């Protein structure tokens, strides 16, 4: 998921090599016990300045970022309203928090409002308990399983109406949406203070490893003692932090890469619309698109058909992949091929690749039907 083409850039590699020469490879300790290297502090500072928040906190692994952040605030007895289409790490985070979780249909604001109203009525019946029950709304900016954008403006209205705090996960929307890649708040032109906490991953647009959360000091500082993945885990190797800083430098110096990415997303979306028997799921601006069968039979048969398309495409040197899910997923999305857009690949190459997929799809799906 190398959206901005940062993987393989010479300046990033040079910065990382310099970091190995100064710090070695590993950091040999958690953040509390001499695992904090000055480069971590610099990266946190840069991320906070970039996102225009007060503070940011770094994690060593993208998966554990949101999975540690949610249980740090939400405990047993609190209520979490979670979108049904969230990715697995958020589901794990919500499970680990032991809170009362209420899932609402993916991107369905009426369903969410219905749940919020039910909760409000219960609060009226038991006002003493309501005073200590915290309420959270957990959503993703750009959903990795569906490729669509959350209606943040409506959610902010609901936030103030029903007094829920919003935790926004921007794993794939960071570095993609917005004129400067600052994510969904820039895309919708919403002041970033309206969202209580934003968590993101450096593993996609920044082509490094790790994750971060940003927000006000009031919110973020708590994670330094309560975030499990922060306190009890070794810190990010300095070379990866250094690579992330260099990627940020490139992002700040070349803001035109975001417009370029959106343009490519639109082109790929149009090309994909021409595929036979297959529908494209996701908004045109999303760099992650899912291709599903229009007439789906059963999950298993669909999966087999899609996998044969993938292997035929691989024979012709086009690497795509089927989206992978585990049976433990709460609301497993239907089988699909996931296509990601990157600024590294030229428009002509995309045309060639999609022609290959078209051929493969024709062969496989006309055989089947």
């Amino acid at each position, binding site marked *: 998921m190398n959206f901005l083409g940062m993987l393989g850039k010479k300046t990033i590699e040079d910065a990382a090599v310099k970091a190995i020469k100064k710090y*070695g490879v*590993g950091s040999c300790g958690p953040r509390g016990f001499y695992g904090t290297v000055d480069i971590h502090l610099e990266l946190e500072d840069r991320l906070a300045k970039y996102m225009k928040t007060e503070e940011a906190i770094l994690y060593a692994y*993208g998966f554990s970022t949101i999975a540690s952040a949610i249980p740090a605030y939400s405990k047993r007895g609190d209520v979490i309203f979670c979108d049904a289409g969230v990715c697995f790490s958020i589901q794990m985070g919500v499970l680990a928090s032991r809170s009362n979780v209420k899932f609402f249909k993916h991107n369905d604001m009426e369903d969410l409002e219905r749940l919020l109203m039910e909760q409000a009525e219960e609060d009226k019946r038991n006002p003493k308990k309501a005073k200590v029950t915290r309420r959270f709304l957990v959503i993703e900016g750009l959903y990795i399983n569906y490729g669509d954008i959350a209606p943040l403006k409506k959610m902010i209205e609901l936030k103030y109406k029903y007094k829920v705090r919003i935790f926004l996960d921007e794993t794939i929307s960071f570095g993609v949406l917005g004129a400067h890649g600052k994510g969904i708040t820039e895309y919708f032109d919403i002041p970033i203070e309206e969202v209580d906490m934003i968590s993101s991953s450096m593993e996609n647009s920044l082509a490094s490893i790790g994750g971060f959360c940003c927000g006000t000091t009031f919110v973020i500082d708590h994670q330094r003692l309560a975030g499990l*993945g922060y306190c009890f885990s070794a810190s990010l190797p300095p070379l990866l932090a250094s690579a992330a800083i260099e990627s940020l430098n490139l992002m700040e110096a070349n803001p035109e890469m975001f417009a370029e990415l959106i343009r490519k997303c639109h082109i790929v979306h149009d090309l994909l619309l021409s595929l036979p028997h297959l529908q494209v799921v996701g908004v045109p601006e999303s760099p992650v698109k899912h291709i599903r069968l229009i007439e789906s039979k059963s999950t298993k048969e669909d999966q087999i058909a899609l996998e044969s398309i993938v292997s035929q495409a691989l024979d012709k040197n086009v690497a795509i992949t089927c989206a992978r899910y585990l049976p433990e997923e709460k609301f497993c999305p239907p089988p699909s091929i996931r296509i990601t857009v990157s600024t590294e690949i030229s428009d002509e190459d995309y045309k060639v690749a999609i022609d290959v997929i078209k051929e493969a799809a024709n062969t496989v799906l006309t055989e089947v039907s």
Partner: protein
Amino acid sequence: MAFDEGVVRNGDVKKRKHHNQGAVANGIRNGHTICKQVPTSKVKYTKKKSCESFEEAPMLIAIVTYMAYALLVVVGHVRDFLRKLCGEKNSAAKEFGNKGFVPLYSDFESFYTRNLYRRIRDCWNRPICSTPGGWFDIMERTSSDYNWHLDVTGKSSRCINLGSYNYLGFAEDSGTCAEASQETLIKYGAGVCSTRQELGNLDIHIELEKLVAQFLGLESAMVFGMGFATNALNIPALLGKGCLILSDELNHASLVLGCRLSGASIKTFKHNDMKSLENVLRNSIIDGEPGTYRPWKKILIIVEGIYSMEGSIANLPELVRLKKKYNAYLYLDEAHSIGALGPNGRGVVDYYGMDPRDVDIMMGTFTKSFGAAGGYIAGTKELIAHLKFHSHSSVYAISMSPPVAQQIISSMQCIMGLDGTNTGRHRLRQLAWNTRYFRRRLHEMGFLIYGSDDSPVVPLMLYMPAKIGAFGRECLKRNLGVVVVGFPATTIIESRARFCLSAAHTKEMLDQALEMIEEAGTVLHLRYSRLPLEKKTAITSHELEEMPVLE
């Protein structure tokens, strides 16, 4: 009983004797480490008995510690009262906006942070600006408002590193390992941008997994990008509802999280106490599942190789005997013991001279002894095939970064001697010697030290809350970087300082460090130990005369 003899291949296994004299319970164990496995090493590891000591605190110290905490709590409440009513300056971060929302933190949760932790906050999160080797540079920080905010001044001091987990000294910025990582970085890039099951399965990962399996003497292994996530994401893939987990009461947070996420029933047993484990096992099997009384689908015993806060080593022969007797599985977390224990650095199994196949699931991390990051799980081919498909990490989490994987490959080859040098063997012997020398000297000085004689993790008991901060600061004044821990990482009265030894420490460095510790200990009156030297440790000065030399 037929199961007791012959199962544990451990040289001569005699019955354990417990000495109960007054306030001391000393477990003396026979730890003959005659290496019956592949004879790769001609290292003469110590054949002495391995002695563990967990001396109890003198009664007076315990009482004073409780009083100190009570005083702090009272003062804390008074200050909170003043802040709320009389407008005393509250420099904690406040929330702007969100009026009418339920407060994010309950007053009680943040009480500890505000009033106790904040006072000595400068002892933790100390930033460094160099490689965390034997020596490192700690950046100086000051505060103008009693530790509410800490500012970096820009100066740094060169200190001896007794805090980082660098057991074999592979945290280096030059040398073969660092150069190999640099080359790999240029070849593959820093990140991977994909998961193992999709497009993130590189040839370097496969090479690393083969090497890890060969290192441990097992069939197959799998590596993950983060040690914490290895436990938290794989235990749920192995167990589910209807299974039972027996976990040591002092297990690490990642193990506890993994157990909770799996949905299985969890029971704890007293730390390293095999009688307690056997009791819990017997009762659980007899009772069955609560409510339905059905037999458990799977029983898994989870223990760690070395416990990082206690310095104790798991009693592996007894564990294997119990697991075979009651038909349970054994999960061994070797985060601290891999590379640090055993004549060949293969961990607890090597230390006891046992067969690695007796442990069903061996897990470990690469952060400590290999100077990299990430974790692994090793076992039979079937286990790893199951994990490759079902692990949360291989489906959803990004795979390990290539230069980090290369660092592990180079350091592991060095330890195994596959790079053609003696550096690995020398480091192992240096670490073993350092451990015993340091522990004996501390025992001689009269400090209260916990743990086994062979464990490179050395906890020194402090007890009183004020001494936690004082010891951390006194050592820093003398250019010594140490780790101090208090509640909630330990029980409320057992706060301690923890030293992590390394093969990168020379005898001169250790002597200098010991001098500093003795000074700080004298200033702070830390000589709590009441026992004579022979009761605390089995290390003799005679064995320490022969220092390991690089051949």
